[in-house]
């Protein structure tokens, strides 16, 4: 991909430069060709010089650690001295037979699906509502977006205090006569995951709404006007024009949501702490990695878990791009209308 980008950029710059020099060199084609060749070399030099810091940082801080993690994942290693105890795929065997990891994977899967099912429709409805000319629209837009801006740590700390058995939520329920609804929101394994989903929805719905709103802005008014002249009702317009044209936005949002859900860590870590997310039924692959890798001092095993997480995310991302996003790359707008 970078190769095509690069040549495209080089081509564009070169063409611009040529146009400037065209008149001056029109009479003698040979020096011009030489100049072009020299220019090409210089541009490559410039590009290499300018991109090298970024490439060094990317390779050093992203690619190299991934390779190192893969390497450590083949060892039993406590992090002291160089790894020596080669176990081959032993760590991976343990990962896939560990019920705690299976549960974490299951929770990740549930969070992926529930995020899509809960946030998607809700975000579209809110975006449709906020796309209307209603009073206080700007204020509502800001209020919906505020939770997304707040740091995860603050959200986590706030909710973990409010949702304690003796916390504000249960107190409020008691004082408005709904005391029978009060429960142990965080510790009850039957409820904890739903509590987490509630917090995730509250936190990230603003991002989805903003994306959808932006998508709605790009849909030309003419289409819905034409449909309305033809007698389509409001909901028919939304169903047959807005929704299909919003498709690319929805698919991109879903992609971001899936990847975010697979790598969910901070909220769970803050609310349930380092140890008990497995007990409460909210553990994720990332919290499993932190607990069994870093906290347990098994850096080799933790690296193997990191590799598994990386591969799971990579496979999901590639499949999604191959089967879902491909249509957008081919121009979904015309297809959507059909």
């Amino acid at each position, binding site marked *: 991909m970078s*190769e095509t980008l690069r040549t495209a950029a080089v081509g564009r710059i070169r063409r611009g430069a040529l146009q400037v020099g065209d008149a001056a060199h029109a009479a003698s084609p040979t020096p011009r060709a030489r100049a072009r060749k020299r220019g090409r*070399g210089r541009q*490559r*030099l*410039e*590009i*290499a*010089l*300018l*991109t*090298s*810091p970024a*490439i*060094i940082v990317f390779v050093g801080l992203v690619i190299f650690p991934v390779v190192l993690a893969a390497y450590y994942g083949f060892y*039993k290693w*406590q*992090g*002291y*001295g160089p790894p020596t105890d080669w176990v081959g795929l032993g*760590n991976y065997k*343990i990962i896939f037979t*560990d019920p705690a990891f299976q549960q974490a994977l299951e929770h990740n899967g549930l969070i992926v699906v529930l995020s899509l099912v809960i946030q998607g429709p809700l975000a579209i409805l809110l975006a449709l509502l906020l796309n209307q000319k209603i009073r206080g629209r700007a204020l509502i837009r800001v209020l919906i977006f505020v939770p997304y801006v707040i740091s995860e740590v603050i959200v986590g700390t706030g909710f*973990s*205090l409010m949702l*304690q*058995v*003796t916390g504000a939520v249960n107190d409020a329920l008691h004082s408005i006569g709904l005391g029978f609804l009060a429960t*142990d929101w*965080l*510790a009850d*394994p039957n409820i904890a995951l739903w509590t987490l989903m509630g917090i995730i929805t509250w936190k990230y719905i603003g991002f989805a709404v903003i994306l959808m709103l932006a998508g709605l802005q790009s849909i030309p008014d003419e289409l819905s006007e034409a449909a309305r002249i033809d007698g389509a009702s409001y909901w028919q317009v939304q169903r047959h024009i807005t929704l299909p044209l919003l498709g690319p936005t929805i698919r991109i949002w879903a992609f971001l949501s899936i990847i975010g859900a697979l790598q969910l860590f901070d909220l769970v870590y803050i*609310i*349930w*702490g*380092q*140890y*008990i997310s*497995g*007990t*409460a039924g909210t553990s994720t692959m990332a919290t499993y990695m932190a*607990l*069994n890798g*870093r*906290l*347990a*001092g*098994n850096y080799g*095993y933790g690296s193997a878990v990191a590799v598994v997480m990386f591969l799971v995310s990579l496979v999901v991302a590639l499949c999604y791009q191959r089967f879902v996003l491909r249509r957008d790359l081919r121009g979904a707008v015309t297809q959507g209308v059909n």
Partner: protein
Amino acid sequence: MMKKTPAAAIAALGLGVVLAAAACSSGGGSSNGGNSSSSTSSVTMTFWTNATPGPGLTFFQNAVKSFDAAHPGVTIKMQAIQNEDYDGKLQTALASNSTPDIFFQRGGGKMLAMVNANQVAPLTLSAADQANVSAAALAGETLNGKIYAIPLDQQPEGIYYSKDLFKQAGITSTPTTIPELEADVAKLKAINVAPIAVGAKDAWPAAHWYYNFALRECSQATMNAAGTTLKFTDPCWTKAGDDLAAFLKINPFQPGFLTTAAQVGAGSSAGLVANHKAGMELMGAWDPGTIASLTPNQKPLPDLGWFPFPAVPGGAGDPSAMMGGIDGYSLSPNAPKEAFQFLEFLVSTPQQKAYATAFITLPVNKAAQSVVTDSVSVSALQALNKAGYTMQFLDTQYGQNVGNALNAAVVNLLAGKGTVAGIVSSATEAAAKG
């Protein structure tokens, strides 16, 4: 792509690397000059501690200052690292061969891993040092007959309780057996306070209940053997779990204990005791200090009392045995001999007295124990001096890996999600990961 790239581009890439490297190194360059200019007779040592700002850190600053003054040519560079960041930083330093000469040692399985990697120096104590450091504490820093750290204090574990709440509930004397403790739990429930606070969110405070039951059910030999084999096949481990499961039946802990932290905030288990919302808490010797910081006026709780973990009828363990933590300091294998002199200096009587006062803790030097005067610490100290033997906290003793798994399994049992058999099997499974 490489075929098309002219040599000039590669050269430019190389130049970019050089430029970036130059930019990175220019910041650190000047600071290295200080070390090399020092003359050959002087010694500079690095020293890492986890002491937090306050009296503890001040103690170490003063100790370093007076040691430097007494040893011309010796300079100790101290670095205080926040406790939760400490392990990661130390691990990085060990991995990159930049180990500090003198460093805080957690002991147990962590120390074992360092010993196996030859990254900590064995120590030879003089007769004077042996007299200064209590043998029981030294035993906790010994592996295969060699001493790898000098302990500075001991933190025996026991149950801290509110004397006022016990009086209100009509409890006249502290419980000495588990049936008595269960009766007291019922009495505390009757006056509408949580009988026992536990910070299960941090896992280890909950697991310590299991560890103390194991201390009473298992013999000293069984517990030590499990440290090397990491096999928990002796029936006493299951019996300890059964004891805990039976104890849980009376619901002794505060509601929502699973998401209660141990030491942070008024809602933590220490906070519940500090604010008379809970009657008791099982905790190490640092608890009076923690509780003091969480009382409404941030002063020590005046009615705080202490009693050792009650006896379990029929257990194979010594009823006087105690579990606890030890804070010690280790040396890097490359440390100069002056580093060991600094550790010897720290366990001398005057330094130990200052240490115990600063950290509100129990010094390893018996001659310095006279500075422990508050009634809570005195009762803990008396029990410690009478104890048949002391064990390290099991999650330290058996290494973080198995310790973590044990902690999590006990929390599962408390939450009604796990079984007693699960505690024993989780330790075996964890051993496979490390």
